């Protein structure tokens, strides 16, 4: 067999990422995978490739009224893949769908502040809010514009079931959807009319891999040119000149969540002892190969972390002393504490083994229990959850690019069933700090507010924050001008796929 030449085709495992849902073509229902979806669909706005600021995509510019209640978007002169023009009505239609839970939209709740959407003319879209929302723009980055002319005939509650998504979706992006081969791959072809210029590649193919090892095998065999990899697979490529490793911040803080309803964590000193007992530097150096940063609150971005917070240095003696002070023997004795997690990767397994061993040294006896995501959710989200099943969790929550996203995991108002504050943190200071930060209309002042959140977290320890790990992609050096960022939730960001190219 000779391998057919694929000069102008880029294949990759794009949609294999953290939490990536394979084979989900409906952006309204997508909780991840936007890196891929945004190659053929486009949102109004997106982050830049460094995830630091938002830039317009289908909106050439936008303005926010001083009261933070009106957002006016100037729309770009774009065309759908079928040649019809993209208009403000399409945008209005799309936001309508995204706001409507009946469509299966996962964004409905986050768009709830939107009170009205208007399309005064073809190129202007006005969104009115009932109350200021700091995260509206962040949410809008995930709202992929959909063609009204193709979808308006489908009733909202039938939309999710429509075969349109996997057979003939049309967007405005640099590539057009051509075909989906059942759980094998999706193929996109260049959209030669793309307003940003004719794409350099002829085709982009996203292949699905069930097993990470298979993706790596395909990459090394030259069948694909790019894939996301786990950090412990990175060394395999480090010295290989035909591949380039792309490293980026995951924005996901990994933490040990103390179940605040469990009496054993009531005493702050116990929580502090946990922090002091874990040698995070050693774990980062050895298990992560240095590819993580210790986190002493949920944030890692420099501008959000105050300088004077407690670094909780590794100090088992101090931990023991703290436990003794708190009377740990009386609190829990030697009984094993279940450490519940939904991470099942080999890396997480090793990390938990290390954490278990370290905690054991100071006399805290934990036993990791890894379950699949639905089981985890069903345990922790149950309103009347059984404390004994998850006295401690090992989990992760993203804290960027919108720093406010951490709110749901810590705000007292988000305790299940209201939201995903699974550790049931009831820390008034923290709730107040988060509320203040979220309500801060002034973007410039917001960082300061978040620093305050960080401070409270650091001192009160609703979570035992551990670190923020890096994420990796590996791309063939034949691929040029390729932009990939390990964005939380799978993007989207400004990736300019029309510029991607591949050398012979």
């Amino acid at each position, binding site marked *: *067999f000779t391998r*057919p030449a*694929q000069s102008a085709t880029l*294949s990759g495992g794009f949609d294999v990422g953290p*939490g990536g*849902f394979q*084979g*989900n073509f*409906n952006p309204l229902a997508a*909780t*991840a995978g936007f890196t891929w979806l945004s190659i053929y669909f486009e949102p109004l706005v997106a982050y830049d490739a460094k995830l630091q600021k938002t830039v317009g995509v289908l909106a050439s510019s936008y303005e926010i009224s001083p009261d933070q209640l009106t957002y006016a978007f100037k729309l770009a002169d774009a065309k759908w893949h079928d040649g019809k023009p993209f208009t403000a009505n399409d945008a209005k239609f799309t936001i309508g769908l995204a706001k409507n*839970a*009946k469509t*299966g939209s*996962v*964004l*409905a*709740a986050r768009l*709830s502040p939107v009170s009205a959407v208007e399309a005064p003319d073809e190129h202007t879209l006005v969104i009115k809010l009932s109350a200021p929302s700091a995260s509206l723009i962040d949410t809008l980055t995930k709202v992929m514009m959909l063609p009204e002319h193709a979808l308006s005939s489908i009733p909202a509650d039938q939309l*999710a*079931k*429509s*075969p*349109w998504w*996997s057979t003939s979706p049309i967007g405005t992006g640099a590539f057009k959807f051509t075909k989906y*081969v*059942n*759980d*094998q*791959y999706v*193929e996109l072809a260049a959209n030669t009319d793309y307003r940003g210029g004719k794409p350099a590649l002829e085709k982009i*193919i996203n*292949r699905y*891999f*069930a*097993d990470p*090892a*298979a993706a790596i*095998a*395909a990459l*090394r*065999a030259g069948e694909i040119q790019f894939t996301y990899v786990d950090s412990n697979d990175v060394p395999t490529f480090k010295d290989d000149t035909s591949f380039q490793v792309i490293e980026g911040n995951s924005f996901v803080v990994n933490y040990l969540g103390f179940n605040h309803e469990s009496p054993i964590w009531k005493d702050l000193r116990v929580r502090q002892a946990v922090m002091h007992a874990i040698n995070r530097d050693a774990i980062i150096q050895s298990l992560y190969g240095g590819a993580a940063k210790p986190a002493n609150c949920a944030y890692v971005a420099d501008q959000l972390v105050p300088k004077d917070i407690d670094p909780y240095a590794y100090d088992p003696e101090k931990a023991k002393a703290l436990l003794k002070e708190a009377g740990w023997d009386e609190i829990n004795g030697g009984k094993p504490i279940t450490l519940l997690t939904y991470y099942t990767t080999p890396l997480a397994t090793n990390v938990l083994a290390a954490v278990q061993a370290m905690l054991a040294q100071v006399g805290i006896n934990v036993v990791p229990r890894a379950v*699949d*995501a*639905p*089981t*985890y*959710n*069903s345990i922790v*989200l149950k309103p009347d959850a059984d404390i004994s099943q998850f006295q401690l969790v090992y989990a992760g*929550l993203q804290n960027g690019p919108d720093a406010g996203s951490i709110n*749901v*995991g810590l705000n007292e108002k*988000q305790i299940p*069933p*209201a*939201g*995903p504050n699974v550790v049931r943190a009831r820390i008034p200071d923290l709730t107040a700090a988060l509320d203040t930060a979220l309500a801060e209309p002034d973007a410039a002042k917001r960082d300061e507010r978040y620093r305050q959140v960080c401070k409270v977290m650091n001192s009160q320890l609703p979570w035992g924050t551990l670190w923020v790990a890096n994420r990796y992609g590996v791309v063939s050096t034949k691929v040029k001008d390729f932009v990939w960022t390990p964005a*939380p*939730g799978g993007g989207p960001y400004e990736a300019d796929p029309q510029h991607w190219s591949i050398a012979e």
Partner: protein
Amino acid sequence: MLTFSLRRLAIGIGMLLALSMLIFLLLRLTPGDPIDAYIDPNIPLSPADLAELRSRLGLDQPLPVQYLAWLQQALTGNLGYSIKRMDQPVLGLVLSRIGPTILLMGTALVISIIVGIATGIVSAVRRNSVTDVSFSVLALAGISSPAFLSALIGLYVFAVRLNWMPSGGMLTPGEPFSVLDLLHHLILPACLLAVAQAALIMRYMRASLLEVLNQDYVRTARAKGVIEFWVIVKHALRNALLPVVTLIGSTIGLAIGGAIFIESVFNWPGMGLLLVDSVETRDYPVIMGATLIIGACVIVVNLLTDMTYAVIDPRIKVG
């Protein structure tokens, strides 16, 4: 024959009904429901949204009501929609997986039948020879290796290191369909899958042939002056095949459920993968649909096995 088929059909339908009830019950006993699988802690859904989603899926109804609703739909041939991939009807999803599964299993089965029967015959005829012992040891080694390990090693050796075979998938993406391409993708997983199966068939074949070679009618054949080759191939083999057919029948039944390890390592879009995936996401309709379709296949395969018996052995009357 007709009444036999009809009776088996009736039993089969009863079986499927019981099967659907059992799996329905089991599913509700598993922790977590589709919505739990759907939730991403980073994209919080409001309780109202969750309730809305649950009620749209009927998950808030009492169990018997849910089951009956499902059954009523299923009886009209509508197995519902996948929860995870809402745009995909279950029936289509499952049917689209059955093809690749049958292709992979069928190829593996053909390989294993040929290899297993041939080596089994040689082993039995040369009983206790070096050939026999080495075949038997190899077979045992094949049976003793965990499938996922051999899959990973096979992948690593043949796809990554030697680069002889593609690393997975069923077709080269972006290329027009070609049978050669399909075969190229098929051969490695099929062979890996065939190893354990061939080993098992070999051992059954050997035992059964040894038994048959002791039968009186084999002696009769020799007493007629039949040459040894035909004694084995014509007189012994056909009789010795019965237990092997049973074995093959029962493993086909099991295999339709998928070889999860091979499928997941080689990314073969078969039933096994679909099932793992749908259990992980608690995609109830898909699990129910897949169970039913697989169950139906198993029942059909059992029927075919019985009919094969009748072809091989005229003593067994179907009817």
